[in-house]
């Protein structure tokens, strides 16, 4: 937490309500994003008990798939395949390619998409679960020594894998986790750890009635997934067992009853998470977007286009892991994107700029004189050029020194150099963006803010004509070549258990942490 966060958190703690960290919204929101909430059976890596998803904010209109015994292959894939069918339908319109002329290259065209899908999850853990876990568990199915699954399930594995990877790009909006988005835009009176709980985070934003901590503790009992509340799972366990028994005894009526019970429980629990995620979206929608959001979404669509182009040739395949060179390059790109994002946000949003202001990296003052016709010879130059001089009376302290380069917060193109720096006043010589300054018609008495931050000082981001290398054809592909792992490729790594094995699972009665495996006595 920065000092800025601390001050805001103290305000939030006093008010019992979250405080805005930003003046604007810094993520894109599509008209109808797909909200996905899920419960995974504990003890398994990717065995969904239930997935609820939809674009309508009424949970009654959402779709729900349920596996009453996710450790049974048929039960598990009954749910996964149904989800996959709908998911592929949701994605399909965004895969349509159209040809557009490549700028500055007459006669050449590129295939692009007009849009990208947007998926929204309640929290970071669900996002990671859907992408890196469920997506990864599906994407090699149908290949090599694996079980057959419908094609839409393979497609879902590929799409989710793309989302999982793209989610690492700072500032992306295709795969949002609401706890992350909300805590980027609001400061609460609780810790970052506690902010990972969407129920309490939303309670801070909506205002906490009455006695705060007991109310928050009550809300903390809500499990928004992917890990269900353990007590809830304990109550569910007999019905999962009954389903297996019905399976073993070939008793469809018993299975149906057990399934209905599990479905009801999962629906009740996931509806709450689903509604909360839509509520979070509504909160975000009520904030007007920052200027550079559109540019970042364009990039999301651009990158999605590369996936769409690969998809045009069949199910895209993803490597198990990136080779070191690609991993390093990717890391570098993420960090340069993060830098660019920071700069854009600072210029877009006064409250984010305030962080720099608090650190003394801004010059804030009222214009006392303006010499727009001032001319001088720039270092290394021969001709006299126009270098307007702006004299400011400082209204806030700065730690910037004479000679430092600053940009005008009102218009990034306006660049200047600090001169005659005194505690009360200074002069800024405008060395770039003179025309833009003229167009802005600044006058004596106006307040101006300059920032000591050069957005183009860092690395140049990728050139637009290059295929983003994240989506070049992969080299190290698939099954069996995991050279460091002698057992790789032996199976499709599914958590399947036979009906006999499932029936033999001992009943775990009342449990306590002392019963956890690997316990220390």
């Amino acid at each position, binding site marked *: *937490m920065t*000092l800025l966060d*601390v*001050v805001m*958190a*103290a305000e939030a*703690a*006093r008010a019992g309500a979250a*405080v805005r960290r*930003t*003046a604007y919204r810094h993520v894109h929101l599509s008209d109808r994003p797909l909200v996905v909430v899920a419960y995974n059976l504990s*003890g*398994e*890596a990717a*065995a969904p008990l239930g997935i609820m998803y939809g674009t309508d*904010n009424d949970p009654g209109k959402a779709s729900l798939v349920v596996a009453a015994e996710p450790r049974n292959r048929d039960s598990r894939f009954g749910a996964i395949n149904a989800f996959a069918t709908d998911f592929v339908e949701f994605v399909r319109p965004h895969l349509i390619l159209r040809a557009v002329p490549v700028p500055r290259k007459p006669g050449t065209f590129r295939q692009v998409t007009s849009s990208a899908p947007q998926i929204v999850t309640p929290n970071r853990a669900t996002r990671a679960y859907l992408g890196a876990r469920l997506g*990864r*568990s599906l994407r090699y199915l149908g290949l090599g020594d694996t079980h057959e699954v419908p094609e839409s399930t393979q497609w879902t594995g590929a799409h989710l894998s793309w989302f999982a990877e793209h989610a690492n790009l700072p500032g992306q909006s295709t795969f949002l986790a609401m706890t992350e988005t909300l805590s980027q835009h609001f400061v609460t*009176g609780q*810790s*970052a*750890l506690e902010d990972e709980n969407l129920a309490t985070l939303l309670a801070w934003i909506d205002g906490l009635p009455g006695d705060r*901590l007991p109310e928050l*503790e009550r*809300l903390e009992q809500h499990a928004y997934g992917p890990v*269900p509340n*353990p*007590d809830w799972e*304990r109550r569910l*366990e007999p019905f999962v067992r009954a389903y297996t028994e019905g399976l073993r005894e070939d008793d469809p009526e018993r299975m149906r009853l057990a399934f209905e019970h599990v479905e009801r429980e999962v629906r009740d629990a996931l509806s709450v998470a689903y*509604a909360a995620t*839509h*509520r979070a979206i509504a909160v975000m929608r009520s904030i007007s977007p920052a200027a550079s959001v559109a540019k970042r979404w364009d990039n999301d669509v651009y990158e999605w286009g590369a996936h769409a182009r690969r998809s045009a040739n069949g199910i895209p395949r993803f490597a198990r*892991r990136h080779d070191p060179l690609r991993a390093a390059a990717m890391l570098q790109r993420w960090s340069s994107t993060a830098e660019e994002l920071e700069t854009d946000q600072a210029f877009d949003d*006064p*409250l984010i*700029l*305030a962080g720099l*202001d*608090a650190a003394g990296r*801004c010059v804030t003052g009222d214009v006392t004189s303006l010499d727009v016709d001032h001319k001088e010879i720039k270092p290394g130059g021969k001709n006299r050029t126009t270098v307007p001089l702006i004299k400011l009376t400082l*209204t*806030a302290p700065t730690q910037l020194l004479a000679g430092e380069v600053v940009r005008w917060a009102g218009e990034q193109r306006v660049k200047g150099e600090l001169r005659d720096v005194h505690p009360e006043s200074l002069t800024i010589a405008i060395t770039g963006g003179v025309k833009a300054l003229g167009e802005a018609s600044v006058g004596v008495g106006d307040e101006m803010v300059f920032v000591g931050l050069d957005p183009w000082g860092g690395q140049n981001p990728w050139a637009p004509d290059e295929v983003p290398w994240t989506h070049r054809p992969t080299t190290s592909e698939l099954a069996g070549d*995991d050279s460091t792992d002698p*057992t790789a490729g032996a*199976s*499709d*790594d599914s958590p399947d258990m036979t009906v006999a094995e499932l029936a033999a*699972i001992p009943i*775990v009665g009342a*449990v*306590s*942490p*002392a*019963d*956890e*495996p*690997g316990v*220390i*006595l």
Partner: protein
Amino acid sequence: MSLREGGDAVGGLDAIRGTLPGARANARSVAALTENPGCTRRRVIDAAGVAAHELAEKLGHPTPRGQSPFAIEGGNRFEDRLKRRSGYELLVDALARYVDLPKPPDLIVEDVNDIGGRRYTPEWMDARVARTDDVLSQIARGDEHAPHIVDHPVLRFDLTGVTVNLEPDALAFRVGEKLELVEIKAYPIIDGQADPGKLASTAGQSAVYHMALRATLERLGFDPELLVWSVILVAPRNFGRQPVAHRIPLKKKSMSLARVLKAVPRTPDVLATLPDGLTFDVDPAAKLDGVALRWALRNAVESVPALYVPECVQNCDMAKFCRWEAWEHDDPARLGRTVRDNLAGVHSLADALRLATSGPAAGEEELADVAEALGDTYAAIQRARARVPTAGVTPPLPRASTP
């Protein structure tokens, strides 16, 4: 874990626990102790052998402690398959990339669980410690009949001045080679990667085992370097039930843990700072009603200083009480460790806000620096808010539904 201390302190510790039932500590206790070693309250609770979760419950702030039956069953089944159900063959296979052990029937296994006697009694634990000492000596001497795998050894170890019993999952040893620490976990390793949080806590737990093993070897008169500076993690590979082994280096973690533990005052010294006659057994005759009991207990517990951080929730059964206390006192620590450290000397968030808006009061001169930084920050926020009138406002939206 039985926590006992020689000398005078025992009397004090016994008095703190009084007639309360003794604690059978678990992985959480050691994690709580090592994750937050500066917390006196946790040290006292552990040293006195008080059950933290029962204490928290009596204080009216129980920690929800349910565990998923699916998770427990899955974990037990995984370990059972590696060991008993496959005659240890699956474990030997998984370890093969790091230790070349003979296959059954040539494999010698010492299961320290099977020592006889009534389980979980102090005598049973003593016998297991003695048995572990024996086999460790055999191994260190290079005895050719020494076991290749020691299943659930029990190590008696001095952790910051209290004696604890620790139970790693297994030790693996090939005669003439090095001793390996093995931990079996039920969380998946997907494409060679595990959940970083879980991995970190496994490393933390293993670092304690590692320290304890080295100390045991030293106590028995052997070279602790026999033990490799790492732990071999055995966990399910990808999404299935096949095990995979990965070596996790421990040297840095163990060293930093040793440094941290050395820096905390020894438990007898901590006990000396506590109020005379302190006991958590405030109502041995069961005469108080619920509210009175809670108050008496709260006073006793609050007289032992805590060092709350939000992460306590993950490690310590007292966390709900300590969080409540931190909120009650508006303690900056409720926002996190860094905030507590950055606002050192500022006792509440309300004070932080006052310093930010109106500077230090008379008598607060030592807070001048932090007050100035807070003041500059507050002024910057106010300037920004003045520029965008809606910036400070939480959107006053109608609530679509109540979560």
